[in-house]
């Protein structure tokens, strides 16, 4: 039998270890942010957002095309990933135990674990090769396909935590099944689903590999969906492996802007989880 003192000491030590683990878990993010701010903040200016890339040796220059390109790609990805993902999530939540549901659930987990470069190859095979050229559409499709499993599973989870009693209350009021699913269950879970969607967006916004041979990158201004388009991660990659110091500085700034976009999206996700009446969902 341990003495009370010994038990207090063990308890104290274990609590200390968990605190340490908690600090270590957030440390990488803090270090990255700190490093990016130190290296990139000086290169971020208004011009960085509004100017086009300049040739080596010329001062100034920005990543306006890459920022717009990344936003365009995210837009395309959402148009593909959200409807399919949310729809599949609703299916899984409604038909929990059918063989098809089991198969879909398993396959979407596999898809979730698929290396992102494979997703790029897939988009290249089906969209780039037949068209004969790289395009924003192909890049967006690759990112959208990556979003599908993420959105599917969060949608399913969020719908499943809506209490059965709410569903029953709606059915007992004479709501048909489909109205119950949409007006009550889906609406109750909406904030959570929106969060999941934004997390998925944040996740794919920084992807580089699937864009290498789909969106390809573009040194010029292009908003055409059928043409190669610039993207922040690609631009950062190109600049970072170049031998020029100015480009290195620009790459740091680009990384800072990219992480800021992801951070803003994550904050937006936190914001929408507050329901219409101000009560946080989680």
């Amino acid at each position, binding site marked *: 039998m341990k003495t009370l003192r010994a038990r207090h000491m063990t308890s104290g030590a274990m609590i200390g270890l968990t605190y340490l683990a908690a600090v270590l878990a957030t440390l990488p993010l803090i270090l990255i942010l700190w490093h990016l701010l130190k290296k990139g903040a000086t290169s971020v200016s208004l011009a960085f957002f509004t100017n086009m890339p300049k040739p080596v040796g010329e001062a100034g220059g920005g990543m306006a095309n890459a920022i717009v390109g990344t936003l365009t790609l995210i837009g395309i990805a959402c148009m593909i990933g959200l409807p399919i993902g949310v729809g599949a999530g609703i299916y899984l939540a409604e038909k929990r135990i059918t063989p098809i549901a089991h198969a879909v659930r398993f396959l979407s987990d596999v898809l979730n674990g698929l290396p992102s470069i494979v997703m790029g190859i897939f988009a290249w095979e089906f969209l780039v090769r037949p068209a004969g050229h790289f395009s924003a559409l192909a890049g967006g499709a690759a990112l959208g396909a990556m979003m599908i499993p993420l959105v599917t599973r969060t949608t399913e989870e969020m719908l499943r935590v809506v209490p059965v009693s709410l569903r*029953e*209350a709606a059915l*007992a*009021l004479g709501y048909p099944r489909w109205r119950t699913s949409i007006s009550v269950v889906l609406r*109750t879970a909406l904030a959570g689903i929106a969060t999941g969607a934004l997390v998925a967006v944040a996740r794919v916004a920084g992807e580089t590999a699937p864009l290498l041979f789909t969106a390809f990158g573009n040194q010029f201004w292009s908003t055409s969906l059928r043409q190669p388009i610039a993207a922040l991660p690609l631009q950062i990659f190109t600049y970072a492996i170049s031998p020029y110091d100015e480009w290195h500085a620009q790459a740091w700034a680009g990384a800072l802007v990219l992480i800021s976009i992801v951070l803003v999206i994550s904050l937006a996700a936190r914001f929408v989880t507050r329901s219409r009446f101000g009560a946080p969902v989680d």
Partner: protein
Amino acid sequence: MMPHVVTPRPAATETRESAQPEKACIVTRHLTAYFGETPAIKDISTVIPQLAVTAIIGPSGCGKSTLLRCLNRMHETVPNARVDGDVEILGSSIYGEGTNATAVRRHVGMVFQRPTPFPTMSIEANVAAGLRVDSIQRKADQKEHEIVEEALHRAGLWDEVKDRLTESAMGLSGGQQQRLCIARALATRPRVLLLDEPTASLDPLSSQKVEELVYQLRETMTVVIVTHNMQQAARVSDRTAFLLAGELIEFERTNQLFTAPKDPRTEAYITGRFG
């Protein structure tokens, strides 16, 4: 606290008996309800009278709630659950061919054990939810305002919520939420109201309010209430059904069932020898 004495309100029961010859409201014929292959209630044939409160009592797991949920076709919403036999409400079979479960549920109100306000809707929208089934309307019109107000009055909640109709229903207390659910059920003017242990999760004062409400509702509708609480059954009901292991053991006038039960099992239960 209310006095825990098993005494029906004799005055009320007697005047009602003399004033109104009893008409049938709900008729069940060989009603058997299964979960998978296990029957939860077995071959129940009975008649529930109109414009009266009928209580269903019995130990946990005896099939009280299942019986109730067969009366508005909620039982079949559970996976692998099914129903045999028939239920007739006000002369028409609710399990008949061509009868739509959704339509049945619109005419038979139901309130559950735990309050179930819709969390994304305001107080007003909650009460109006049953009225909006046929439309996708979000804003209330004049007629709807009136119906909502009347339903809240009847549920005894109007004075407490009239200044906060557009606020979230989640801000109400448990007792208020439950009366909101009753108002929601009343708004569609059902002929029959089913209450599944409506006071089980409420404090004594809120329970008392709900009981008083149930007592008043019998003037305009048929009420069937499932309860764990025998005192409650005695207080609010005209008739009481005793269920045991899925079988209907005894169904009598409440004062008779509690004072002179015919079946020894009923007597054993109401005197607290089991359950």
